């Protein structure tokens, strides 16, 4: 019994509708943001409000693929699990054969090839996730890559996926400054502010210092709110002074 009919076929005007519908599924997932600094890469995810009885420590949206690679995704959690498992195996297989850890580009290429294969096989549907893959290559360069259900991947300085990705990306485009990225704190602040644009509760994972405790996140958020208040006060003062 073999599935010999393809699900993903071209439309008359050149679209792969199944892939585009998969991208719609991604837009329903919770937001994830990635920022690449000079010596730091940050992944931030919007923490979905858990049901009352749910143990929210088990809701992990940022996953380790290896010591030097982490990944956040937006879309169907179950699809992501398959990709994460295969990517973890590939990281170890690469270590075994090549005796070196994977480069971020390599593992992104592997994940994208896997996603593309599922858009061109009989009986299968595309994966419904976009992934943000961050990490450091073994020569120390930080990297941030994004993949989507069609299997394309690109490197980014900062990007967002999931619900409200457009808003967050516009915020990042307006506020990303090269010289700020030299400082780890400013890079973290940018990621937090980007997510604050769209949601209140947040969960972070900057690679250099490990997982930020919720208390530390609260501190950063409080510092950002304070800065915002002072900026607003200044604006009001100059406005009243000029009138």
């Amino acid at each position: 019994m073999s599935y010999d009919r393809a699900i993903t076929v071209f439309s008359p005007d050149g679209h792969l509708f199944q892939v585009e519908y998969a991208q719609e599924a991604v837009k329903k997932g919770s937001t994830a943001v990635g920022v690449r600094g000079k010596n730091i890469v940050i992944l931030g995810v919007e923490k979905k409000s858990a049901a009352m009885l749910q143990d929210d420590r088990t809701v992990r949206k940022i996953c380790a693929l290896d010591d030097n690679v982490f990944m956040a995704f937006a879309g169907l959690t179950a699809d992501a699990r398959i990709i994460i498992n295969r990517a973890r195996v590939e990281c170890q297989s690469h270590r075994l054969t090549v005796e070196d850890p994977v480069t971020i580009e390599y593992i992104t290429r592997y994940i994208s090839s896997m996603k593309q294969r599922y858009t061109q096989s009989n009986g299968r549907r595309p994966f419904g996730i976009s992934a943000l893959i961050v990490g450091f290559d073994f020569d120390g360069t930080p990297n941030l890559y994004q993949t989507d259900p069609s299997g394309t991947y690109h490197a980014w300085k900062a990007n967002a996926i999931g619900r409200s990705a457009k808003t967050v990306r516009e915020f990042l485009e307006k506020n990303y400054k090269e010289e700020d990225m030299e400082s780890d704190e400013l890079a973290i602040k940018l990621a937090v502010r980007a997510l604050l644009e769209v949601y209140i509760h947040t969960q972070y994972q900057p690679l250099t210092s490990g997982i930020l405790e919720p208390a530390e996140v609260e501190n950063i958020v409080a510092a950002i709110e304070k800065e915002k208040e002072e900026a607003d006060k200044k604006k009001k003062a100059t406005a009243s002074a000029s009138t």
Partner: protein
Amino acid sequence: MALAEVSGYSSVSGFGLFSRQAHFVDGPNHYSFGVKSQEFAVPVGVDPSTFLQSCSCEDGISIDMNHGTTTLAFKFRHGVIVAVDSRASAGNYIDTKEANKVIEINPYLLGTMSGSAADCQYWERLLAKECRLYQLRNGQRISVSAASKLLSNMMIGYRGMGLSMGSMICGWDKKGPGLYYVDSEGTRLSGWMFSTGCGNSYAYGVVDAGYREDLTVEEAYELGRRGIAHATHRDAYSGGVVNLYHMQEDGWIKVCKEDVSELIHRYRKGMF
């Protein structure tokens, strides 16, 4: 079948083998060689090892595999020295006195050959192809440890089937100079000095006696030449010329190609 592949269940069917092979070649990491996913077609029911045993018995037709050679390589402060002889013998007959036993995989990787000439040439050329594919796919040159691992995995895939190959993979990569010994049993060793072939004991004697980590470049060249020259003097299956290579940080250079009889003539003063 889609579900079968996703869950990792491998169905055993001759027809399925073709699709699996294609999947292997297309995949980004198709480093699996061996009986199940063979590099070349073998008729069903043929057992290479018994066939080879029947070939080497004395009565009847006997195919003598080429085994004679001396190769050596050692790391020192200024890189890696690789020295090989050039005699290819088939039993009591010298096939050629100018065989090329070093394969130049790329400007930063060399492989030596000892054992069966056909096995060495085939598998090391295949290794060169894999190294080039790695470079194209990943945008950077393959490391010496990865290249030697690939060759060693190829050998392990065909273990017990009568391959005969003893090779040293030498190169210079991000981790510095690299030297690995790989053979057809599946051994893979990293080290400072190796010598392979039936003349290796003579070469070890000479190089062990004269080796220091802080040899100058000229002293190292001379040590490599001497090792091969003395081995060819005593070993019947080694001879011809010494091909000497020096692996430096920016690639290998071919240092010289000297006839061993002239070298022995030069060293004659200290010998009986």
